[in-house]
């Protein structure tokens, strides 16, 4: 009894925000731009003798042409295959020999490349990054395109075709976005488009999108800022700038009613996907929908988890996410039925919980709990300099989004300023029952 009392008291005191008791959330940086248009962001963090070198090209699958879906990602693979002064295979061999790691990733909106090296190999990383930015086409060949085409087709088989429910996310985007909207097709691409991609496409794509003026370079870690700036100027200044890239002008995406579809798959349990079109990243409503996803499925006490998985146990899992994009977002709720239960049962329970949140806002504690978790997650994101989601990558991400590289505190403030009625309003405004996509995946032979 006594222990409980003491703790309740402590929790009341805790209502003060974490920021009041913690150092400020800031990442000091230096930003400069080369004459060829390359933006460079530097941040010093000496906790380990490691440097993260992170390049964003401002091109993703949303820039693709019909008939060439998946091309931005296929192109990403080709960036590791060598350039004029780096023989095929050497990119990885040189980095591994120096104790480095590297990777790349492609989304709808951007393509990023990460190289993490011990600090003595920073210049090697800059040599490799600059050579593929400036001289990729010099040694490009149809054979190289063919080689990575096969790899990417196997990536598609592994991550989508041979994975349970793997086709659902592709189908969901097709239903959510109009056919001429660039979020309609999958980043991995359609198999026939991967087959059609040509060497000529590679040349055209590189010239159009891979110029320094369409890229940003972020370096975080155990660096000297002046010396690093000189190294960047040395390796990147001779790369010619390209023509400005026109921003994407997407057609309007609006759902006017409920779109339904049923797929079958080689699975044993039915799954339901409910999805809505929602405000793009950083637009009003985006953060409130993040909080709504937490109120719905973040933790055992969340509305949907507690009802579907904890109490009634009609679902094996339930997840909600605001999937934020640069030109639009979607909010998705996904639930898998337990054996003996149906997606109709799941959907009815989900709709009842959404209706309840439209009628009355979540409790203050539910929202504060979600805010406290979000706040702690911002500090967790301060630990690593390199890799996907490290500080170099985050500085680049905020820069590209337009708020400036050190947008951490402002981003967090989007969440800490929310009230329960803001979360309620977002659910009313953006998750209506009569304008959404309902996709069901049923076990084969049970349709």
């Amino acid at each position: 009894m006594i222990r409980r009392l003491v703790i309740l008291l402590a929790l009341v005191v805790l209502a003060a925000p974490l920021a009041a008791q913690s150092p400020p959330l800031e990442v000091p940086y230096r930003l400069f731009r080369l004459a060829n248009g390359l933006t460079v962001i530097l941040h010093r963090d000496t906790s380990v003798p490691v440097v993260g070198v992170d390049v964003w090209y401002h091109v993703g699958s949303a820039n693709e042409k019909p008939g060439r879906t998946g091309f931005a990602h296929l192109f990403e693979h080709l960036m590791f295959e060598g350039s004029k002064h780096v023989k095929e295979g050497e990119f990885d061999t040189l980095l591994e020999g120096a104790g480095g790691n590297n990777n790349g990733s492609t989304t709808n909106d951007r393509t990023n490349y990460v190289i993490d090296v011990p600090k003595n190999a920073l210049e090697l990383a800059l040599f490799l990054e600059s050579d593929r930015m400036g001289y990729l086409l010099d040694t490009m060949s149809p054979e190289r395109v063919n080689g990575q085409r096969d790899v990417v087709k196997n990536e598609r088989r592994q991550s989508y075709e041979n994975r349970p429910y793997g086709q659902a996310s592709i189908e969901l985007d097709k239903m959510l976005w109009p056919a001429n909207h660039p979020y309609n097709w999958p980043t991995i691409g359609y198999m026939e488009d991967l087959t059609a991609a040509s060497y000529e496409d590679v040349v055209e794509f590189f010239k159009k999108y891979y110029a320094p003026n369409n890229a940003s370079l972020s370096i975080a870690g155990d660096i000297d800022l002046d010396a690093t700036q000189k190294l960047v100027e040395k390796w990147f200044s001779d790369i010619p700038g390209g023509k400005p890239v026109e921003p994407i002008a997407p057609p309007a995406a609006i759902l006017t009613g409920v779109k339904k579809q049923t797929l079958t798959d080689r699975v044993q349990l039915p799954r339901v996907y409910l999805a809505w079109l929602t405000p793009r990243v950083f637009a009003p409503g985006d953060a409130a929908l993040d909080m709504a996803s937490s109120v719905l499925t973040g933790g055992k006490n969340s509305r949907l988890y507690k009802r579907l998985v904890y109490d009634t146990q009609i679902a094996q899992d339930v997840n909600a996410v605001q999937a934020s994009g640069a030109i639009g977002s979607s909010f998705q709720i996904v639930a898998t039925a337990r054996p003996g239960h149906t997606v109709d049962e799941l959907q009815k329970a989900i709709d009842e919980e959404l209706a309840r949140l439209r009628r009355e806002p979540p409790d203050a504690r539910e929202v504060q709990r979600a805010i406290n978790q979000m706040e702690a997650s911002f500090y967790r994101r301060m630990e690593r300099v390199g890799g996907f989601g490290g500080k170099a990558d985050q500085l680049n991400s905020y820069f590209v989004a337009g708020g400036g590289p050190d947008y951490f505190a402002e981003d967090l403030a989007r969440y800490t300023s929310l009230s329960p009625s803001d979360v309620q309003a977002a659910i009313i405004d953006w998750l209506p029952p009569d304008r959404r996509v309902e996709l069901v995946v049923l076990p084969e032979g049970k349709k």
Partner: protein
Amino acid sequence: MNPSTSLGTRKLCLLFVIAAVATVGAQNAPDRSHPPQLGPAPTLDLPPIQKRMLSNRLAVWFVESHEVPLVQVNLVVQAGSGNDPAGKYGLASLTAAMLDEGAGSRSSLQIADAIEFLGAELATTSSFDASAVRMNVPVARLQDALPIMADVALRPTFPQADLDRLRQERITALIQAKDDPAQIVPIAFTRVVYGTMHRYGTPAMGSDTTLKAFTASDLKQFHADMYQPANSTLIVVGDIKPDAVLPQLEKLFGSWSAASASRPGPVAPARQLTQGQLYLVDKPEAPQSQIRIGWVGVPRSTPDYFPLQVLNTILGGSFTSRLNQNLREEHGYAYGAGSRFDMRLSSGPFFASAGVQADKTAEALQEFFNELNGMLKPIPAEELNKAKNYVALSFPSEFEAIDDLSSHLEEMVVYKLPDDYFERYVSNIQAVTADAVQKVAATYIQPKKFAIVVVGDRKSIEPKIRALNLAPIHVVSVEDVFGQRELQ
């Protein structure tokens, strides 16, 4: 605010500053004829481990890391799935998973609410060798979160309703695993290599049958027998000073006493395979075949640890490894291929693996064996050096975040590594010779005796696999893989 407006302003100022620099750059185009020389590699100064002990002799290890205002607190208990009693496979795993489903005076939901409200993350989990309660919490909330963690670790209540819920969740997860070739292949492989009688032949989670049989008293007994201060260590890493935290740890963990005189025993050694066998698990219409090839590997205590790290890096432990270069870069059969020695207290499995496109399954199998056999020939010096440098020079990056540090400390505890182990790691890797790699290759890579498991579309892949004549072929079903019997 319109973000593009503010950005445009900044761009103008910067262009002005940079113009001069760019001119200099153009006059001195860099020499790209060879990669820049590397300076001397940095050494990693590991922060010291400050070892203390509570009045009940519970060891407490502290490492200070003041970069970010967070703390990682792990209670590691040296008992895991390897200590499951015969016929009760899955007990350690379910016991660990149940710790935060009711503890002290709090219910499952109350624990989750309290932890999340503090912005903390709490995980209760286990491996074959150990169980752990791990908490990551903002340092300002540590004092409030620790009592909850102590309840979870020391005073779990194992409520029947929550046990039934978790049991059903796990049984359902096993049903779902049957849908996924990537989940079927490790289960089939370890069953083939270890059989039903050895603990490593069944997933840590157990089976449908054992899961259905567990009672709350089984879990309580396992917790009483295995979770003891004498075989546990508290690891605290982060933005703290040991002396400031110790009094609270003493208060919360210092009166913990052994509830039982029982002690976890060792896992029996596994019998090694003596002749090759190929198991084809039929997964109709699978567009890729999941392949896993290998046998019983080595325990973590192997004296061959460092040569094996280098060997595996060359074979399948890095992007430029032979398996990945062959199956991905050269042939394009796979998105990726690799290999691994899964080292545990007893000998865990060694395996090479990949998902390959169905119509190239036989060709891929042949390439796997070409590369495995190739490891028995002398390794070129350049390749050996690249692998050693990769492992040695990337080592500092494994100590960046507080959960990196704490997981390395757990490794020290569970495998009883000496205090200077990580300080000497890099020089131990650099000391590996070509002869040493050759010697461990001859011992641990014996492809003729390896088990081969392929999960794929039997109808389309079987004829070409048979034509390879790799080993006797057994065709089994997915249900067989998840069943109680040996695979025949």
